[in-house]
């Protein structure tokens, strides 16, 4: 025989009343009660699943407990890691020091010490589309911990006639160099029809390399000095310039403003204009 239900509910007036002006002060906010699992359903022997999270009680001492401090440290670390990953894979900003790219970037670096900010893209689309005319940043071949910014003048397979540099020095060109040298000068060929001498002033950019030059031909240390740069050294592609607050624009080509000596480039047949296959 089941127990009988109580006849009446307990009276409300029987509960102890709290006075308005109590001497104990304001009461703390009550923690919301966790609903007790109560189910005799055979499919849910442990009661219904609780999906709603119970909010933790408000902590009294805020950031002074270890849990909150650890959360702040974790968020800071994650932010730094996110910034590093963004710099590695997407975009970063840097200044252009020196006037080697003068009409285009940092034109008043020498006179007024004004430096341009550039936006460097490092995403996969920028990496795959390095072509003639692009301004790239790269690690210097002769200084492993420094980067430089120059313009890609020729890509692999192109014939370059530099206006200065090592290729115009007959002592270097006719000297005995390493077989398969990657300075683009070529080797004397005894079977050649025109003659076995290496042509002075002609460079064929090797595979996997690019030829970079600065826009300021008077003050630039570029491929005319250290030879072709391999694609693995390329760091990013400079796409936008920020000179003043209101001057944020794409990197153009302002070499025509200056009269000077320019390197002559004969595009090779390996790649056509606009179909960049170079990847670094």
């Amino acid at each position, binding site marked *: *025989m089941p127990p009988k239900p109580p006849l009446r509910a307990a009276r409300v007036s029987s509960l102890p009343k709290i006075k308005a002006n109590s001497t104990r002060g304001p009461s703390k906010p009550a923690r919301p009660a966790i609903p007790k699992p109560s189910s*005799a359903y*055979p*499919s*849910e*022997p442990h009661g219904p*699943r609780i*999906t709603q*999270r119970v909010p933790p009680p408000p902590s009294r001492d805020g950031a002074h407990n270890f849990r909150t401090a650890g959360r702040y440290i974790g968020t800071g670390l*994650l932010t730094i*890691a*996110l910034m*590093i*990953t963004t710099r*590695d894979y997407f975009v970063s900003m840097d200044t252009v020091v020196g006037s080697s790219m003068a009409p285009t970037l940092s034109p008043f670096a020498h006179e007024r010490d004004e430096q341009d900010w550039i936006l460097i893209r490092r995403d996969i689309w920028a990496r795959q589309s390095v072509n003639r005319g692009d301004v790239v940043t790269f*690690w*210097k*071949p*002769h*200084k*492993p*911990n420094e980067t430089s910014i120059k313009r890609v003048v020729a890509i692999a397979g192109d014939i370059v006639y530099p206006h200065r540099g090592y290729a115009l020095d007959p002592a270097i060109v006719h000297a*005995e160099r*390493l*077989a*398969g*040298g*990657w300075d683009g000068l070529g080797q004397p060929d005894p079977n050649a029809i025109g003659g076995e001498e290496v042509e002075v002033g002609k460079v064929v950019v*090797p*595979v*996997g*390399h690019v030829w970079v030059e600065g826009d300021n031909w008077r003050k630039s240390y570029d491929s005319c000095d250290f030879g072709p740069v*391999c*694609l*693995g*050294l390329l760091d990013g592609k400079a796409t936008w310039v920020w000179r003043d607050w209101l001057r944020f624009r794409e990197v153009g080509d302002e070499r025509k403003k200056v009269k000077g000596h320019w390197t002559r480039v004969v595009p090779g047949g390996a790649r056509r204009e606009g179909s960049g296959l*170079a*990847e*670094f």
Partner: protein
Amino acid sequence: MPPPRTPIPSLFSRLRTATSQPHRPDSTTLHRSVKHVIAGGIFTHIFISYIGGVSFTHGISMVPTIPYSGQPAPFIIYSNLHRRGRNIQVGDMVIFKHPTRSGQTALKRVIGLPGDYVSVVSGARDEGDLGKKAEDGDWANVKNQAFRVPEGHCWVAGDNLDWSRDSRVHGPVPLALVQSKAVGLLFPWRERRWFKNGLGDSNGVGKEQVIL
């Protein structure tokens, strides 16, 4: 009065519950798991590219040091604290981006650092070298050349000089291309060890044949 019967939780009822009412995470749980996956990927990238990791290698160019017998490929431990040629000494094995093949990496031993003079022996054996033997001291049509390693570059060579494409083929490698330094061999497990610095690393097999 007997106590009321409690239902026995059976396996079938649990199965039925699992199939009929799948557990769907609410938006908070989903957001949190996505955030954890992204954070894990970011920290993995930073660890692999700035601290070090484990990678497999291919090829026979380092054969006495790193054994290679096809599959499975040997695994090495590398340290990225030596990237861009920091604290690299002659005799270390470095992993670098290939100078001519973009997107590929290579593992070779550093023979010369900037300013060093390297005696360069011409590359592979020709058809005319087939009859020659190493015991005679005349194993290939070698051409000796003295070469000074330029500034910021290093000269690399494989330990298996007959079957190695190294600086004899692609010239000196810029130190900025060096990504990491090979620290130890992890697999094959029986030959696991830490690599020692130095050129006497081969197990006595090709020790006399290493030409410097």
